């Protein structure tokens, strides 16, 4: 199986057309995997047969969470009491796991930076460069492709003329194709109607402390609002708000607020994540003491964190490496305009 496979692969590589991964699936994989998964499934089936079912008494920890929610925290929502009160330390750790994930995404997706500083290749390559014919100017096609790429990155359409300031400026019935950033009038109107409702709903989940989860679903909705605005109106409309520098600062501010909320419990009440705020009446905007403060900080943290992660993924640069045949031309050559790999074309 192996030699035939590599042979087929080599033949495909020379023809510059690669077969899809599914086309030559080795048979041993599904067999071994089925064996392993079947064994694990059997073990899990035996395990779940023995765990408590719907008629078992609830565990003590659940009963305790339910009974202390109202007297000790003034919350009518035991889930929220567990998230921000009893198991506040768990949520604290989770927040910073999310922060670590966002930082990883930002780091991994960061495009290559131009090098600063002296590396010596100017001197080393000087002789070679002065030789005639080495530094041949790029051909016209490459220049055109690169100019188009730059225009596209500046937010103009590649045809040369700048697009309209907003998609709404495009008059109705224009025969020209829709620019990529714009959606149809129907979609844009629907988004315009849904957006404020969604934003208010997300904030409402947080403002009233008895919504389960508080800041987590609220933050996810904030991210959805930003994404919806992006889908409907394009990058330029949200560029002032969804910019990495601003969002990163706001996210760190949210994380600091969470740290302060939890640490003040240690300072004022003697234990980390203890409640140090007076309890308001249940079902009011301030009920739950620090749970509400924690939840609001979590909204900032989760909302900005998810927005950063999603928009960073969406805006990942065209950092394609050249493949082994060196045919970076059509696919990557024009796309990698900002990178050294894109410039050094054979």
């Amino acid at each position, binding site marked *: 199986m192996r030699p035939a496979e590599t042979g087929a692969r080599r033949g495909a590589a020379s023809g510059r057309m690669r077969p899809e*991964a599914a086309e030559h699936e080795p048979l041993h*994989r*599904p067999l*071994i*995997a*089925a064996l*392993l*998964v079947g064994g*694990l*499934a059997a073990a*899990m*089936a035996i395990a*779940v*047969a023995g*765990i*408590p*079912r*719907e*008629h078992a008494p*609830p*565990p003590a920890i*659940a009963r305790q*969470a*339910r*009974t202390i*929610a*109202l*007297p000790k925290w003034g919350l*009518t*929502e*035991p*889930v929220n009491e*567990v*998230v921000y009160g009893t*198991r506040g330390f*768990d*949520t604290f750790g*989770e927040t910073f796991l*999310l922060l670590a*994930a*966002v930082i*990883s995404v930002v780091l*991994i*997706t960061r495009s290559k930076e131009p090098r600063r500083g002296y590396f010596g290749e100017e001197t080393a390559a000087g002789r070679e460069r002065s030789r005639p014919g080495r530094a041949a100017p790029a051909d016209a096609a490459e220049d055109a492709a690169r100019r188009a790429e730059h225009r596209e990155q500046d937010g103009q359409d590649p045809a040369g003329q700048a697009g309209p300031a907003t998609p709404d400026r495009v008059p109705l019935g224009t025969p020209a194709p829709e620019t990529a950033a714009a959606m149809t009038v129907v979609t844009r109107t629907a988004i315009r109607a849904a957006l404020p409702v969604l934003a208010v709903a997300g904030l409402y989940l947080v403002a009233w402390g*008895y919504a*389960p989860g508080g800041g*987590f679903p609220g933050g*996810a909705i904030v991210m959805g609002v930003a994404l919806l605005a992006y889908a409907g109106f394009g990058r330029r409309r949200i560029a002032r708000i969804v910019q990495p520098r601003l969002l990163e600062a706001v996210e760190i501010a949210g994380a600091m607020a969470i740290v302060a909320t939890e640490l003040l419990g240690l300072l004022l009440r003697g234990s980390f994540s203890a409640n140090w705020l007076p309890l308001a009446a*249940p079902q009011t905007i301030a009920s739950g003491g620090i749970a509400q403060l924690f939840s609001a900080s979590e909204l900032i943290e*989760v909302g900005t964190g*998810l927005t950063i*992660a999603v928009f960073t*993924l969406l805006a*990942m640069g*065209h*950092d*394609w*490496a050249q*493949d*082994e045949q060196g045919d970076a031309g059509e696919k990557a050559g024009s796309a990698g305009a900002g990178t050294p790999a894109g410039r050094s074309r054979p």
Partner: protein
Amino acid sequence: MILANYLTSAALFGIGLYAVLTRRNMIKIVMGLSLMEASTYLFMISLAYRGGSTAPVLLNPPPGQSMRALAHGNVADPVLQNFCLTAVVIGVAVTAVFLSVVVRIAQHYRTLDCDRVREMRG
């Protein structure tokens, strides 16, 4: 029969693991991992359920009952629901990291096939 939920979540976990073990497209591997995450959500929410229980919300008690009495009534386990909430957020974050790594690998090796990535390395 909550046992059906447990078995379904075990089956979902198995399907996800099978996808991770057999697929070579890295996007499909990430999908398999997401399926495994989702199976744990189903498992924890099912574990929180008790026969005939209501959501753990101590609001609008039936006439003649106080909110405190509601807390001692038949209510689903809030601690496991909290675990599920935590797991959802972690799942989203982890999937975002996976996907960004996949895009980087695709950009570096020009392929989504993990076999081919290994081949290129040596």
